[in-house]
């Protein structure tokens, strides 16, 4: 996914934020959750996931701590910060606007 544009990176960021709304998750968990909430459309691989996670963490949108997974592995669990939650809402609003606009622009599928 390296060569995708900024738009897609924004998509991934939003998807990650979204996936964490209910509970903190580790990397693989986030990946699986995204697959679930997009009904399998997005399968985020480690090569894209980790850069995004670290970027979001450094911007203060995510926080992380180490804990034990279901399978008793040490793992880093990411959760939304207050700033992250707020930013997610802003981004969601943006996306909805874009989505509606795009739908209008492309017209009904004939």
């Amino acid at each position, binding site marked *: 996914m*390296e060569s995708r544009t*900024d*738009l897609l*990176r*924004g*998509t991934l*960021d*939003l998807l990650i*934020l979204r996936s964490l709304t209910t509970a903190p998750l*580790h*990397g*693989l968990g986030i990946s699986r959750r995204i697959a679930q909430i997009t009904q399998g459309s997005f399968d985020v*691989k*480690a*090569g894209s996931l*980790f*850069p995004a996670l*670290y*970027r*979001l*963490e*450094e*911007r*203060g*949108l995510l926080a992380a701590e180490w804990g034990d*997974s279901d*399978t008793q*592995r*040490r*793992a*880093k669990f990411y959760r939304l910060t207050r*700033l992250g939650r707020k*930013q*997610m809402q*802003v*981004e969601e609003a*943006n*996306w909805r606007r874009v989505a509606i606009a795009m739908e209008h622009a492309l017209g009904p599928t004939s």
Partner: protein
Amino acid sequence: MTPRGSAVSWFVALVRNLFGGGRRDAELRADIDSYVEMLVDEKVAGGLTPEAARRRALIEVGSVDGVKDSTRSVRAGAPLAQIGNDARYALRMIRRDWTFSAVAIVTLAIGIAGTTVMLALIQGVLLRPLPVLEQDRLIVAWKEVRTSGSAQYPFGKTDIEAVADASRLLVNTAGVSRHGVGRAVIVENGVSAFVNDALITGGFFDVLGVRAILGRTITRADDVDGAENVIVISHRLWQRRYGGSREILGRIVRLGEQPFTIVGVMPPDSDYPRGVEVWRTTRSVPATGPFGDAARQEVNLVARLRPGVTIEQATSELTTLSEQLDAKASPKVTVDLRPVVRSYEDVVVGDIRTSLIALLSAVGLVLLISSVNAANLLLMRGETRRGELAVRAALGARRSTIVRQLIVESLVLALAAGAVGLAVAWWSLQALLSLVPDGLPRVESIRIDATVLALTLAIAFMTALLTGFAPALLSMKADLVSQLRSGGARGVAGPSARHGRRTLVVAQVALAVIIVAGAGLLIRSVLRLQSVDMGLAVDHLMLVNLDVPQAKYVDRGRHAQFLDEVMSQLESVSSISAATPVNVAPFTGQGWDVPTFTAEGQNVQEAAANASLNLESIHPNYFDTFDVPVIRGRAFTAADREGSQEVAIVSEDVAAQTWPGMDPIGKRLKIGHLPDPKTKWYTIVGVAASTRYRDLMRARPTLYLPAAQFQMTALMLALRTTASLDLAASLARDRVHAVDPDVHVIRVAQFTEMLDEPLARPRFNAFLLTVFGLTALLLSTIGLYAVMAAHVRQRDREIALRLALGATATSVRSFVLAEALWLAGLGAVIGLVGAAAATRLLRGMLFQVDPLDPSSILGAALLLIAASVLASYGPVRQATGINASSLLRNDY
């Protein structure tokens, strides 16, 4: 549409990333590892065997290194952190391969050091502003003969003031002694020594716009009748003679037998006229002394232009003004003169510019060679590291990362080399400045300053790019898969790398040929100068400097009588075969001139075409003492006295030019070229061989007049003696003392010592260029050696095969040697062409040597080829020492 975030937390992350050591990296690693483990768990739970699950998981994740790489690259401060990382990595590589790194660093350091030294010289001499106010507005002017452009004529001191009044383009004018500095005897506490003194008019420092760093400068108030005699001293004299003591103000010293008060010290690098140690007013010279009138009256003009006025405008205004002044002058000026105006900077810096630039070009070539050499080393190491790089690339390290690391590595090398080079430069600059000839202007201004430092740094970076770029590019081009497959660890050079290396060697040899050829030319030039036929015999010749009390010998007759008595005393000594008084020290270019003369029968136009003559007032023993052959006629005798017929001797070139095909004996000439019935006719009684007494570079046409009829005050004696220097010195002291205890012998020196001064600059240039040449030779030999050694190492299997198939050691040797000769030969040929073009830069520095002198240029090429053969000796032996069977068995 990337979500924005908090700047504070980004900054915190930045600080943690940069200064958190490896903690963040370790955390990332653990994070990814746990991701992989959980993926494996997931797959095991899905029914796969643990091994299959792990394999599938790793395939899915792709390269763990790659994930780490791309995650790092988005983190806060990533670019900085990466450079830090790369630098750490580079340091590790440098330590791991210490020999290689040391060679590369030393190679680069040599080039950087040389360049830094030359830049410091150029910055100090040519570029740093002179310590005067707005140097661009300062000019120096004198006059020359309009028709022949020969000889420097002075302005009159009164002209200076008249010009100042009448000029609309000059703001401020002053006068300065026309011959530059003189040698004066300074006496303090009964000890006498020489100092270089300069005569100035009161406005001199005002025109330059300089202030004293201690006390005050000489002002117009010091240059009026009845003013106290004062001097201002140079910073160098202050340091050397007075240890920089602030107590010297008000101190009284005797200079030329008069008391002078020291009133000020000038700042360092105040070096006009060049070599000056003491400034005094023209008025402080007693009118009664030898040529006192001339010293008081005849000066060059120093002036400050109004803003925006050009030298051309100033010249034309001065021409008009001085024509008006000459028309009013009395006695009437007998020569047709016009002013010559130069910028102050040109006069101070002089003709050093071309040689400094030539030397800088040479050192630039050395820098290029050392960069090429270092690039070659990196390239070779790059080849042995192919395997490593290929493995890393296969593990997912991005190509740009690898290239960046290579460049950072050469950057670290270059910075280390820069530091070493700077230290070497600093040290060698100190050494060099102690060797520097007196004639080099502005020595006090030469140092490694901030500008030079910045340039050195820039050069280090530039060499880093130069040396790192080629290897990096090649490593990018390399086909990694085939590298891995063919066992890259053995370091088999690809054809492109081998080609690159050979090109670099050829370039090195070519560049070295150019520098060595230049050095050869300068060395030959110095040898020519040293062995040039001076027209006089310099061995067993000594010079004695006298301190004659002027007040006692104001009367010239008395002075002449004193000299005669000293001469007869000295000539009565058996070990002294001849002795004569001399006016001017040899090879200084200074002395008295006859800018124009008229031979009997010449009209004004013909006379105007005559050469300018040196004037020597000599005693009868002059030609015997210097062993100058009198070709025709006779030398002067005691019978040529005041009142007898006025006689003259000319040098052979004057005779040949003025009276071609005729017997010059009995012909007559007079000084000046405008008809003036009052001047005397001199009858030629002899023709002497030409000498280079005045100027080592060329024999000058000379007019000799008998001292008895045309006396100048001789303050030197020349002795032709078989005695040792010490013996001659004590003899001279005794005999002079016996005639007059008030006259002191200041110094006795071998005549050949006088050659040191005119030879100093050429020797200095030749020395520097030889150092550069040897460095170039050494570097390119090392380069060739390294390439040949690598070449043999990498073709060992081929060589082993040849040996196994029956090739003899000799044939293998010649096959390796042929390769070396081919590279060196090609480089030498290219170098020959380059040298032929480049040595033109040296033209102004050569003496009786053609810039295309074949023995220097071809010699340089042959030297390089010979050095290459030597350099390939090791690799050749190595080639024949290859143990064929073991090598072949091991590898196949």
